[in-house]
C-alpha cells in the first residue's frame, strides 16, 4: 500500500500542519512515512503545499508528482493540482473557498465546506482538522482513533481544552464524508 497525498492551499490555512499530523499518525501506525513541504518565497502570502507519502514499502521518492489523493484547500490549488491526480484517485475540496467547485469525472470527489463547519464549531482554525477527518473517513488510510490519541499528546497544559474541539472537528469532517 502506498498513498501519495498532496495537500495544498493558501499560506495560513494550516496546510503544512495538516500534512505533519497525517505523517505523524502514519508513523504511529507503523507505516513508512515522508513529508515534504513546498518552501521558499512562493510561500510568501501565496500558496503552500506539501507531499505526504504513507507506505508499507520503503519510500523512494518523497515528492508526490502524481497524487493518489489531493486535498485542495482553495481554488487555485484545485485548478493547479487536480489534473495531476491518478485516475481513480481521490480529491477533497474545501468548498468554502472554491466558487462552483467541480471535479474530474474519473476521480472520487468530496466537497467539504470546512470554513462553514469550522465557523459552526466557533473556531476557524480547526478547518484543517475538519478536512483531515474527512480524509481519514474517505480513505481509511489510518484509524481516526490514532489521530485522536495524538491530539491528546499535542495539546497539553493550558491548551488541553483544545483536544475536545479538535476531536470534534475530526468527527465533523468524517461525518461529512459518510453522509456526503
Amino acid at each position: 500500500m502506498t498513498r501519495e497525498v498532496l495537500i495544498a492551499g493558501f499560506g495560513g490555512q494550516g496546510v503544512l500542519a495538516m500534512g505533519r499530523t497525517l505523517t505523524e499518525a502514519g508513523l504511529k501506525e507503523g507505516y513508512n512515512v515522508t513529508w515534504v513541504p513546498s518552501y521558499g518565497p512562493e510561500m510568501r502570502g501565496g500558496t503552500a503545499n506539501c507531499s505526504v507519502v504513507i507506505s508499507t514499502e520503503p519510500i523512494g521518492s518523497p515528492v508526490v508528482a502524481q497524487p493518489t489523493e489531493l486535498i485542495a484547500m482553495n481554488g487555485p490549488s484545485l485548478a493547479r493540482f487536480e489534473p495531476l491526480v491518478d485516475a481513480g484517485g481521490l480529491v477533497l475540496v474545501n468548498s468554502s473557498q472554491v466558487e462552483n467547485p467541480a471535479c474530474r469525472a474519473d476521480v472520487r470527489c468530496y466537497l467539504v465546506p470546512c470554513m462553514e463547519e469550522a465557523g459552526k464549531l466557533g473556531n476557524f482554525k480547526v478547518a484543517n482538522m475538519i478536512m483531515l477527518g474527512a480524509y481519514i473517513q474517505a480513505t481509511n488510510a489510518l484509524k481516526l482513533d490514532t489521530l485522536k490519541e495524538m491530539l491528546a499528546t499535542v495539546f497539553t497544559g493550558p491548551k488541553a481544552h483544545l483536544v475536545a474541539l479538535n476531536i470534534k472537528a475530526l468527527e465533523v469532517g468524517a461525518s461529512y464524508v459518510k453522509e456526503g
Partner: protein
Amino acid sequence: MSTQVVYQRSRGLQDVETHYCPGCHHGVIHKLIAEVLVEMDLLDSAVGVSPVGCAVLAGNYFNCDFVEAAHGRAPAVATGIKRVKPEMLVFTYQGDGDLASIGAAEIVHAAMRGERFTTIFINNAIYGMTGGQMAPTTLVGQKSTTTQAGRDPLQHGQPIRMAEMLSTLDGMAYCERVCVADMGNLHRAKRAIKKAFTLQQQGVGHTFVEFLSTCPTNWGMSPVDAGKWVLSDMAKVYPLGVVKDVPKEEKA
C-alpha cells in the same frame, strides 16, 4: 466635467503583482522610487541593482533596467556599472542582511571611494527572505529565529547604525534616514530619494538613503502595528533625519 488624477499607479512600475507580503513597506518604497524616476524623467537612463533578499525580483517590478547582484555585492556591481556608464542614473536597493552583514565591505568601500551612485538601504531589522533570522540591525531584545530569546548584546552585539558609520567616510556626500510609517514621513522619504538622485547627477559623491522598513510577516505583527513599531521602537535606535549633507555644509 474635468477629471484630475490625485494618485494613480506610477508609470515607473510595471503593471504586475509583487510577491511581497501584505503591507510590507518594500512595496511602498518601490513606489516612491518609481515616482521620483518618473518625475525626474529617468526611466530610460536609470539602472537599479537589486539585492539578494526579499527585493530580489525588483527588476520585474520597476519600469527601468535592472541588474540582480550576488548577496551583498550590489555596491560592487553598481561601481562596475557607474564607472563604465557615468551618464546613467545608478541606484542599488539593498536589505539590511545584504548591505550591513555579508556586504559590509562593499558598501564601506563604495562610500569611501565616493562612488557616484545612490544606495537605497532597507533596514527592517531582520532577514525577511530567509524567514526571520537576526540581522546586524535587529534591536536588542528583538526575537528572531536565531535569537529566540531576543537579541542579547553580550552574545550578538548591539545594532549597527550603517548611516552613522558610513558617514565617517569622506566619500559619503549625503546620507539621510527616513521611513514610510506615516504620511509625513512618506513625503520626507520621497524628497530624500529625489535629493539623492539629484546630487548623484551633480557628481558630488556617494548618496545614501536608509529606510526604516517593516517585515510584518517575520515580526509577527499586523502591517499597521509594524508601522507603529517603526516609529515607537526602531526610530529610537535609528534616529530619523539627515545624518550627513556635505553639499549643504559646504554652502553654509
